[in-house]
């Protein structure tokens, strides 16, 4: 019985010595360690040890019966095995309950500024924090309440701790009321009664540099009944540097000189530069280390993704034993989406859920002829057109039958059915049954890795749900979204482990490195704060208090890591090499500092190393000349349209290539987060009301401003209600109000017009024209309004304009042109001795198309409804030159024949509003190529 300290020496990898130590007293044959409890620092090191043992067995043509290989935490779990302790999630729920049900003003110091929103998620955050304090104290055998009984001199925030203790008291009461035991307290009490399984006859703790005080207590207790071997990965000459439990002594390691050659330490810029530095060492022709003999570690885990990318590009498979956080698994996303609907039951959340691949898979398999793309497109269409907010808005819209053949209704009904289940009593059961239904269409094969991972994750979800389903939590009446939050949180703190397929390259974390036996090692991210980690300042446990309580201090972390680094280097001194890479900044741009451990060297190296590791590192490199990887290549097998609208002609005038994208290819962006009417919808609403007005034979002859305004407002409101229901989106309401204001002013103008004898003759008149040109492409248009003056018999053709500023018809149609400008002939024209180019053909073409009906005394112009409503009014094209009609016709012919010949090139260099700027990058000439070879 009793404890014995063994020194392995550090001239070889720790697991070699460990295996030797473990099997030393075994005869040949089966390696039977089943009576051993082997304690190693991490799960990974346990696996490493088993591997080594298995390899040894392989050499001996046999197997290993491994006994228990565990991390120190096992001792605590074992101690509490028979108690009904409150699990993590349960404790958290209880904390949340305490925090939410307690009047915070009872704790004026602790919560001197109460949260703006004392809600579940606040309580969850605070609860987590409290739990972490409890567990940190618990590892050392303290509870929060204990602290209040301590010597007060050292204890500067006594009052605050008293409050904290009072709060903790409430929590403890809650735990006990629930018939449970609090984990930390129980551990502390149970640890001295700890028993191991009867078959265990010996305890071996190997290279564990920092067992928690509670674990040491356990071992102390166990050493009275079993032999306990403590193995240290260091030579016995270093015995002074360790305490009785193999822990590095902090006073000793502070000045220890770790022997690392300065040239093995490299400074690199960002994480990507660190990865590049690794690449130089192990890949390519100048490599200094053979990759297969080299392990790669990352003291800063943020370097790992870069390393993964690096090696993936070089076709080296990698493996991270740290696993992946469960929150990266798609199941997590599914549950998140479900939970979002519960906390914000809005269309957006439904849409997100419907876009989840699992849901789409379910729908595909459970609805006949289901199309994923159609469903997603329908979601966008409904969003774009109706901006639904609640689920009920969607139902209302769908009832109109606007989406014939859509599966949206079907899909939404299924989702809604699930969601409605949540309003029932039991959230956990509901989650299970909903997931059971969603996945009922999916078969898992045990031999398939992703299926296996799916199962692992599911199992974790189920076990968490079981914990949440306990009577304790049920009694707390946690709302459904709260249960979901707790589930998601539990998932976030858990990892899942993809398979190792064979010889992948491990990307190891710092604590895994001591158990790595590759001859060469590259350690990246060797920065202070990562190794050694340090805590400077804390909400509750600053260093001063930690030291007083005997919790782990910065000094201890330093000592441990100094020792580990030394052991890592020493075990390769004769057989391999250690290269260290230090980062200058992280990807967020924070400046990093080299690890303090790197300065455990003699005076002469110190200053050289210091000035080398503290210097500016700019990302220097060869600049890549700006090249364009490709130009957009268009399809030339397009069909020429049979009709073109007058508005489309304007598009051509603005830019032929963009005309091609818009009017020929019909490229249109959807799926933006629309929350208001776009300008064209805004205009349409105005137009709509005015059209109704123009068609109503009674009202249109009114000269009563108010009556007209009321009529227009009425039409407007009706239309808005039809589209958006009784509660339109706020912005649409404001827009509606803005339209109403504009219409009110239009009503004033209209009343004036009518009084002046102007009578509406026609509105929204469809007109078209094929003559006189020969392209067979018909030009079409809708003329907003034609008035006849009762007194003079004069005619006026109007177009309503709802742009921000009032517009002038002349400026809108033509622009002066300098001679040098390159414009196709049909776009330029001469009028009254000056050169112009067409900007729009609308009004002249209206003249032309209406020529049969309205020939004499015709004027044209705009009915402006601008945002400065005082400026509402008529803008007539003064002294309109009838020659323009002919000129415009020529231009229109030019455009139609260009379209017919598929001439869409060259594009305009600059357009005022470019809806294709995203893909043309503002420069169509540079980023696109002519759709068809230019026809002369």
């Amino acid at each position, binding site marked *: 019985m009793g404890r014995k300290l063994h020194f392995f020496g550090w001239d070889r990898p720790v697991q070699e010595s460990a295996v030797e130590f473990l099997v030393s007293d075994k005869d040949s044959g089966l390696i039977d360690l089943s009576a051993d409890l082997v304690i190693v620092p991490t799960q990974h090191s346990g696996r490493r040890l088993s591997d080594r043992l298995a390899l040894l067995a392989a050499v001996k043509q046999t197997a290993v019966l491994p006994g228990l290989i565990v991390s120190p935490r096992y001792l605590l779990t074992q101690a509490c095995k028979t108690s009904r302790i409150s699990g993590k999630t349960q404790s958290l729920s209880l904390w949340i309950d305490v925090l939410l049900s307690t009047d915070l003003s009872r704790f004026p110091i602790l919560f*001197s500024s109460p949260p703006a929103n004392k809600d579940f998620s606040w309580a969850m955050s605070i609860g987590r924090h409290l739990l972490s304090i409890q567990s940190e104290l618990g590892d050392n055998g303290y509870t929060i309440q204990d602290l209040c009984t301590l010597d007060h001199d050292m204890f500067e925030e006594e009052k605050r701790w008293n409050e904290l203790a009072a709060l903790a008291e409430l929590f403890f009461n809650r735990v006990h009321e629930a018939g449970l035991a609090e984990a930390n307290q129980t551990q502390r009490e149970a640890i001295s009664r700890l028993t191991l399984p009867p078959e265990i006859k010996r305890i071996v703790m190997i290279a564990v540099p920092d067992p928690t005080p509670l674990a040491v207590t356990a071992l102390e207790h166990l050493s009275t009944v079993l032999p306990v071997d403590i193995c240290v990965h260091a030579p016995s000459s270093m015995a002074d540097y360790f305490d009785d439990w193999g822990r590095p002594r902090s006073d000793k390691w502070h000045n220890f000189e770790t022997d690392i050659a300065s040239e093995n330490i490299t400074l690199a810029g960002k994480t990507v530069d660190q990865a590049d530095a690794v690449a130089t060492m192990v890949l390519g022709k100048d490599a200094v280390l053979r990759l297969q003999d080299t392990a790669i570690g990352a003291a800063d885990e943020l370097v790992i993704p870069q390393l993964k990318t690096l090696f993936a590009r070089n076709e080296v498979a990698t493996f991270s034993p740290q696993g992946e956080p469960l929150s990266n698994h798609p199941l997590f996303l599914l549950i998140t989406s479900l939970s979002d609907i519960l906390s914000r039951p809005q269309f957006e959340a439904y849409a997100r859920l419907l876009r989840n691949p699992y849901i789409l898979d379910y729908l595909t398999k459970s609805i006949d002829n289901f199309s994923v793309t159609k469903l997603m497109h329908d979601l966008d269409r409904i969003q774009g057109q109706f901006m639904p907010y609640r689920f009920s808005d969607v139902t209302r819209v769908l009832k109109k039958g606007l989406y014939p053949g859509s599966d949206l209704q079907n899909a939404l009904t299924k989702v809604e059915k699930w969601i409605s289940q949540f309003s029932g009593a039991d959230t956990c059961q509901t989650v299970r049954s909903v997931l059971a239904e969603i*996945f009922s269409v999916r078969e898992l094969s045990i031999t398939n890795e992703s299926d296996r991972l799916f199962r692992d994750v599911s199992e974790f979800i189920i076990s968490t749900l079981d914990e949440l389903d306990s009577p304790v939590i049920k009694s707390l009446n946690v709302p459904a979204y709260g249960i979901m939050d707790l589930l998601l949180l539990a998932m976030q703190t858990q990892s899942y482990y993809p398979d190792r397929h064979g010889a992948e390259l491990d990307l190891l974390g710092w604590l895994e490195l001591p158990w790595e036996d590759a001859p060469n090692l590259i350690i990246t991210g060797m920065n202070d704060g990562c190794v050694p980690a340090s805590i400077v300042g804390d909400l509750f446990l600053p260093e001063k208090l930690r030291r007083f309580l005997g919790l782990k201090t910065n000094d201890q972390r330093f000592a441990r890591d100094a020792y580990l680094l030394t052991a890592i280097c020493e075990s390769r001194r004769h057989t391999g090499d250690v290269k260290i890479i230090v980062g200058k900044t992280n990807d967020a741009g924070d400046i990093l500092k080299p690890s303090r451990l790197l300065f455990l060297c003699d005076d002469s190296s110190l200053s050289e190393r210091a000035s080398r590791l503290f210097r500016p590192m700019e990302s220097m490199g060869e600049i*890549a000349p700006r090249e364009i990887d490709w130009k957009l290549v268009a399809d030339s097998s397009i069909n020429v349209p049979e009709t073109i609208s007058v508005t489309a002609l304007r598009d051509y005038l603005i830019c032929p290539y963009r005309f091609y994208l818009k009017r020929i290819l019909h490229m249109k962006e959807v799926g933006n987060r629309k929350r208001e009417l776009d300008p064209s919808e805004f205009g349409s609403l105005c137009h709509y009301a005015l059209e109704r007005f123009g068609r109503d034979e009674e009202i249109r002859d009114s000269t009563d401003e108010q009556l007209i305004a009321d009529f227009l407002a009425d039409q407007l409101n009706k239309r808005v209600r039809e589209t958006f229901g009784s509660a*339109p989106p706020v912005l649409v309401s404001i827009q509606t109000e803005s339209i109403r*204001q504009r219409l009110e002013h239009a009503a004033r103008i209209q009343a004036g017009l009518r009084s002046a004898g102007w009578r509406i003759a026609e509105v929204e008149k469809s007109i078209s024209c094929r003559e006189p040109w020969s392209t067979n492409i018909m030009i079409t248009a809708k003329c907003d309004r034609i008035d006849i003056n009762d007194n003079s018999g004069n005619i006026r053709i109007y177009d309503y304009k709802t742009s921000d500023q009032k517009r002038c018809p002349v400026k809108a149609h033509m622009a002066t042109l300098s001679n040098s400008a390159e414009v196709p002939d049909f776009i330029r024209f001469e009028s009254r001795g000056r050169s112009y180019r067409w900007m729009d053909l609308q009004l002249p073409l209206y003249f032309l198309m209406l020529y049969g009906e309205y020939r004499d005394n015709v004027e044209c112009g705009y009915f402006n409804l601008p945002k400065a409503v005082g400026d509402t009014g008529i803008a007539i094209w003064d002294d309109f030159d009838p020659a323009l009609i002919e000129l415009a016709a020529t231009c229109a012919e030019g455009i139609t024949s260009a379209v017919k010949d598929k001439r869409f090139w060259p594009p305009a260099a600059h357009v005022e509003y470019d809806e294709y700027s995203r893909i043309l990058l503002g420069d169509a000439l540079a980023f696109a190529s002519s759709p068809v070879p230019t026809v002369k």
Partner: protein
Amino acid sequence: MVSEVYNHEVISASAGSGKTFQLTNRYLNLVLARNINPEAIIALTFSRKAASEIFDTIIDRLALGTRSSAAARLLGCQIRVPDLNEGDCIRCLRTLLSCLHKNRIGTYDSFFIWILRTFAWEFGVTGNFRIVDPLMAAVKVQDVLNGLFQRGRNLDDAHREFVEIFKRATFGRQEKALSNLLSSFVENYHHIYLDSPNRENWGSVNTIWPDGCESLVVEFDIENEIASLKAQILDDSVSKKEREAWETFLFEVEAFSPYTQIAPGLRYLLEKLVPKLDDLKAGSAELKINRETRVLSSKACQHLYNLVTHIVGICLRTQIQKTCGIREIIQRFETRYNIDARCAGELTFSDVQTLLDPADTGVGNCLPLSQKPGAADRLYIDYRLDSRFEHWLLDEFQDTSTLQWRIIENLIDEVVQDTSGARTFFYVGDLKQAIHGWRGGDWKLFEDVADKYNHDGVEQIKRIPLAESYRSCQPVIDTVNMVFEPESLATIRGPALRRWERNWRRHTTTVHDKSGYATLLRVPRESGARSADHSRARWQILAETIKKLPFERNDLSVAVLVKTNRTGSSLTSFLRVNGVSAIWEGDLRISDNPVVTAFVSLIKISQHPGDSMAEKHLRMTPFSSVMTRCFAGYDQLVVSLNKDIHAGGFSYLIEKWITLLEKEINITRFGRRRIDELLAAARKFDASGSRSSLDFIEYIERYTTTELTDPTSVRVMTMHKSKGLGFDVVLLPDLQDKSVLTSSRPIDLAVRKSKGAESRTEWVLAMPLKTISNADPVLKDYIERHNDDYCYEELCLFYVAMTRAKRGLYMITTASAQRSQAVYPATLLEHALEHRSDAIDAQSDQSEMIRVFETGDPDWHHDLPEIENAERPEPAPAKKMSPESPGRLARNLKRITPSGVEDITINAGKLFSLNSTFSAELGISVHELFQHITWLDDTDTVGLVSMWAQDCTVSDAVKSAVRGEFENAIRSPAFRKLLAKPERDTDLWREQRFEIVLNNEYVSGCFDRVSFARGSGPTGVEQAEIIDYKTDNINPDTDLAAAKKKYRPQLELYRKVIAKITDLPAKKISCKLAFTKTGTVVEI
């Protein structure tokens, strides 16, 4: 020379005099002369880069000091520590390095975050808040705005109210695109609101016009006024043109309302009348209309005065309405933002400051920070920060904002008030480099803070000016002196000039050993040319000048400094086209190239397949062939994209598609870089957890990058960005685009602050048009001051630009137009430098460019040492590669478990079904019970079950099911036989784990039960029997064959393991499945 080091010092350090150097001097002095522990010193600056530079410099200088006693002495001299030796330096260096983690040289932001983290609960946030980067924050703001626009079930009051407020905020304007408008309100005004949320400060008549505002009180009968005026003014003497002008004016005045824009006809005369307001009021004024001067009668004056007052009144009332509306909108936003973002633990840097603000703004704690324990209305920080700062060093102090100062003010107060002499305060900056006003920097603090402590004749803070440059050579310094002497600046605004004069000191330099050159080149003004043509002409000269510099031969840093990003990027392209290798050092969007935009489209269709723009766009790119080659149809493509995004994030999708794309085309080096940046961005985004393609695209479109620096290229950057840097050669071709006299940007929201170190917002007002505000004394005064500040900052910027030059300074301007009133930096240069040098060649060869001024040696670069052929330090020779070892391949094997080889499929839905837990627990418990059985005959099964029931923690339902199943099984004859005690000597394993290597795979597993019959086999075993308990629900009559098939691979593996261990032939090892539900046993 060792001079005194004062306890509290402020250094105003001119450009190049080494602000960082001064700060590190101070730091080193504290540690080396006063033996101060580095932990007790806090040094704050603005950028992370600057912080790192300070620390690097400290370490570097110390390290240098360890090299020789001369070096140590030199250092000692610089930092005013006599007799410094190498030993001191090495000791100090070691101390510094051993407490890296406690070192507090950093940014204000990091210091504030640190405090907030350690006092989170006190500030009403939780401790695990995250700092979100500005891009994510922008996405969040949109999210909060979305929340604001949600509608309730009905058109509820809140909704209606919002509509009303919005109407107020856009008073008189029926806006169409509201969403952007709202975003811009929030973007531009949120911080103003946070600084001063009180209703009384926003558009409040009494605060803005404490002496009353005439336009707002008086009311007139406008029709009357107009009629009387007409009578006064429109007599026969009036020309037709003038009459027209007056009539339009009067017509517009009458029609004028909050709902109309100021029409040109109104503006024309208004702009003439407003400057004459005082005259009008006094009753005698002259007006110039159409080049004719008209003398107004006193009556006409009165009426005109009234009309102007009337118009101004309307405008002011409108603006007041708007101001209140805007405030309410922001208030609503803020309430929601506080809950959705801050309370949810997502904070931006500015949120952190807002929370720490000791002034009462409605957020945060309002308690000032303190290092004195025990004060009730203070937050005592030292204990929780594990720190005790005795010495404060603040860098670039002219850029400090009032908010930042408010947060630390009390801490500094305590330092300065400490009489023990053990605590010190030091700040450094240059009031001539105050160019950060646009982002909150308030240079007035620089003086105000010193004034605050130096009152009543006591100089607590010693002011030390430094005007000696370590950077620039004599000709550059001479030129700077000539240009920036107050006498040269006579044309600028008076207050700005006076301010400059106060801070100006003639510069000297220590750089005497290097030659240098400064020149001003002037391009003649071509009449009729536009300003773009002028820039072209200057750029041409610029390119020629650069080409003459000995780039390749010498290690020369050359920078072209410009004012705006827009100029910078187009100038860079211009230089490249003209054969100069140039790099633009501004931000570039990563979506500036076809590869990234195509990826954006690809990601778009993954969740929005109906986006025909994205889809057709892809079909116009090389992605098109990937799409047709690898996917059966659009549906399949979309499903696959969406799946990949959900499974591995956007970064995963991008990596995968790059590989696919590379099979189609060779991506250029540039495209490759952008892809790498896209990937980096994607990784950051993925970490946020969102898998929404829209969010991602929004993020990517805002994401920017910078070009790599390359020593052989010209660096083009903005003057703002050049601050703090120095270059061998600086070229300034962009000194002409904005006048320094008046701010060219209209003021949207005027924010009036009070004076002094405790400056607070007095009032906020949405400013009317300039014509109108000029009519109001208060607003006019505001604009004047604003323009003074603007002018001063422009001057600073110009100063910063010129002082970046070490050896060569080339300034290129266009001759100013005759009669131009505008004052550009170029004008100042001309004014100061023309006729100041004699060696001028009037015409240079290549163009009509004129060398207006030069000083120094035009061939200064001939004395530059040539770079020797790239002698890079070879990397240390690597150790010989060790002889080939089996390597990783032999160590890292695949790891399998026997239960993982079962050839079965299960329904995923069943995993979640309600009884899955029940069956899992049942399975485990049954196994556990059987594990206790050695031989059935010897076992007290009743006792066993009750013991088990006592110990285990499963639910009662499970317990009773287990009991039933167990008892049922052990009653079955097959089980009785299976577990009966054999006659021969037998070893038994129960629940035995094993590890073994089989076929190059690690197999680890666990046998339920194996019995070994002892005998004469090679290992003393004659036969073995493997038993595996199964708790499946099977029907023994129908399912056995299927079950056997299912479990065969597993049991075969067991058999192999036992064979390996015992050396028995396979036939000597029997494998049995024991089904506990039915008590059936089958042999495999």
